[in-house]
């Protein structure tokens, strides 16, 4: 098989699996509905419950906490959306369909890639919903459409990387509930110990040090500054670097696990 042909099959296999996963979301639209409710709730609660107390956080963001908050919530959205990958894969392992895929002469990567790509597309839909709700709450882009698109793409790319972490977790634990719990236990604390919801300035020194130097903060800062027209380049480079590092580690690791012991 030539390299071109192998690449073509790689892509067509991935697309076949992606389509399959997307059809599930189309036929079960409540999945997207309910996975949007949680971040919308976060958005409302943070905005109205903490918004007053944290008003100062919005000072640099045209005086509105929602301008600070929404990009952070969107980071949370892509992370938790990415975690669905592990849950979906664990479900596929248990239903036996992964065995079918593994017995086919198809790409060894496509089952995982098709899942991560589908979950990224799903993330795009949920981001759209979040932007809509945020807009109603007073969120605005101050730096034009191009930067808005750049922000969304960066968030999706970041969520895509977390999908691969979740894929690895799903392949290892092989069970939906464990996948959900394992992912949650990892993601929840590091999301809160970041600049996603509150400014890091008020955290204790050691926590601030951690929060300032982890990818979720890079993502939140990149998104925020892009939307608000503040200098973002530094955060974006750090975000891209950590995203690529995650992919370089977790794509081969997940594929290896898939080949060995699904």
């Amino acid at each position, binding site marked *: 098989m030539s390299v071109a042909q192998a690449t073509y099959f790689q892509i067509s296999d991935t697309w076949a699996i992606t*389509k399959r996963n997307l059809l599930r979301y189309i036929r079960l639209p409540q999945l997207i509905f309910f996975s949007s409710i949680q971040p919308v709730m976060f958005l409302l609660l943070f905005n109205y419950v903490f918004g007053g107390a944290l008003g100062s956080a919005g000072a640099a963001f045209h005086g509105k906490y929602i301008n600070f908050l929404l990009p952070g919530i969107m980071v949370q959205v892509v992370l938790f959306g990415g975690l669905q990958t592990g849950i979906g894969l664990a479900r596929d392992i248990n239903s*036996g369909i992964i065995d079918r895929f593994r017995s*086919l002469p198809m790409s060894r990567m496509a089952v995982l890639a098709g899942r991560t790509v589908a979950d990224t597309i799903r993330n795009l839909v949920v981001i759209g919903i979040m932007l809509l709700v945020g807009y109603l709450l007073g969120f605005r882009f101050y730096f034009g459409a191009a930067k808005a698109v750049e922000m969304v793409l960066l968030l999706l790319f970041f969520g895509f990387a977390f999908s691969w972490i979740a894929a690895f977790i799903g392949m290892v634990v092989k069970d939906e509930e464990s996948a959900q719990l394992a992912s949650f236990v990892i993601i929840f604390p590091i999301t809160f110990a970041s600049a996603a919801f509150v400014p890091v300035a008020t955290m204790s020194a050691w926590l601030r040090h951690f929060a300032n130097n982890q990818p979720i903060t890079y993502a939140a800062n990149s998104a925020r500054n892009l939307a608000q027209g503040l200098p973002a380049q530094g955060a974006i480079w750090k975000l891209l670097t950590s995203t690529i590092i995650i992919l370089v580690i977790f794509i081969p690791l997940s594929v290896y696990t898939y080949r060995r012991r699904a």
Partner: protein
Amino acid sequence: MSDKAFEAKDVYKHFGAVKALDGVTLAAERGTVFSLLGPNGAGKTTLVRMLATLMQPDKGTVEVLGNNVVDEPHKVRELIGLAGQYAAVDEYLTGEENLFMVGRLYHLDANEARRRAKDLLERLHLDDAAKRTVRTYSGGMRRRLDLGASLVGRPQILFLDEPTTGLDPRTRLDLWEIIRVLVKEGTSILLTTQYLEEADELADKIAVIDRGKVIAEGTSNELKATLGGDVIEFEIAGPGLKDRALNAVVNIAEKPATYNAATDTVTVPVGKHGAKNLLDVVRALDNEQIAPLSLSLHQPSLDDVFLTLTGEKASDVAVTPEMKKRRSV
């Protein structure tokens, strides 16, 4: 090209203390149905998973149509079809979409994938349900679709892992019919089952497997022959005829004939030549002017074989059709 459909040589697979396969050597000729018969946990699924490249042996070699499953898994995958006891199809796709997807994953072009999906749905009597999501299918329909998915690639060898476990009798018969047609078309088949009747009905050759070891191998008839052959039974009008009846068949019986007073039945063990001896019994009774109320020729069932070989009551094994939870190994 090897003339074997598959071949396993001295294969071991242990999971901790569990010896799933413990030195299994088996081979099947091309174009035949080979049945692996054994209770839950005997090692059947482990062997199928190895043949389907889903798992590697700890020791020993496994070949499918001459290709080693460890060295050339990709080649093997192009030749095989796999259908299991759990239906590995997507709930949220329609029957047609499921088969189309599998066709695309076999790298058929879209038109060919669509055509094969349509053909298979017709063939498996699922054409009416083609556009419905699998969620709305009955258990039997799912199993047929699963079998369809395993046929999309036109496999030369098909692995059917307990294809009828948990199905109702009618659906089982339907699946048997489909399997027979596939064999006629030249497909080699490995069928695992806990149902002795199923192996008897479909298989050219049977291997009985228990606790990771092959404990007997042969044709259905050969296995039954290990039990000592056929038996003729006839019922007489009353105990008064008993002595004359036993006397009449004394030269035909291989071992002494017996009389059961409760059922007025005479049992005549006749060894291998049941059909010929049946005629002799009829003539002998006619000579004695005894008219039997019933007359039959029995072969020992595979249940008897199973009991003799494993010391377990076959019925304990055979009548547990509950879906086995997929083992994660």
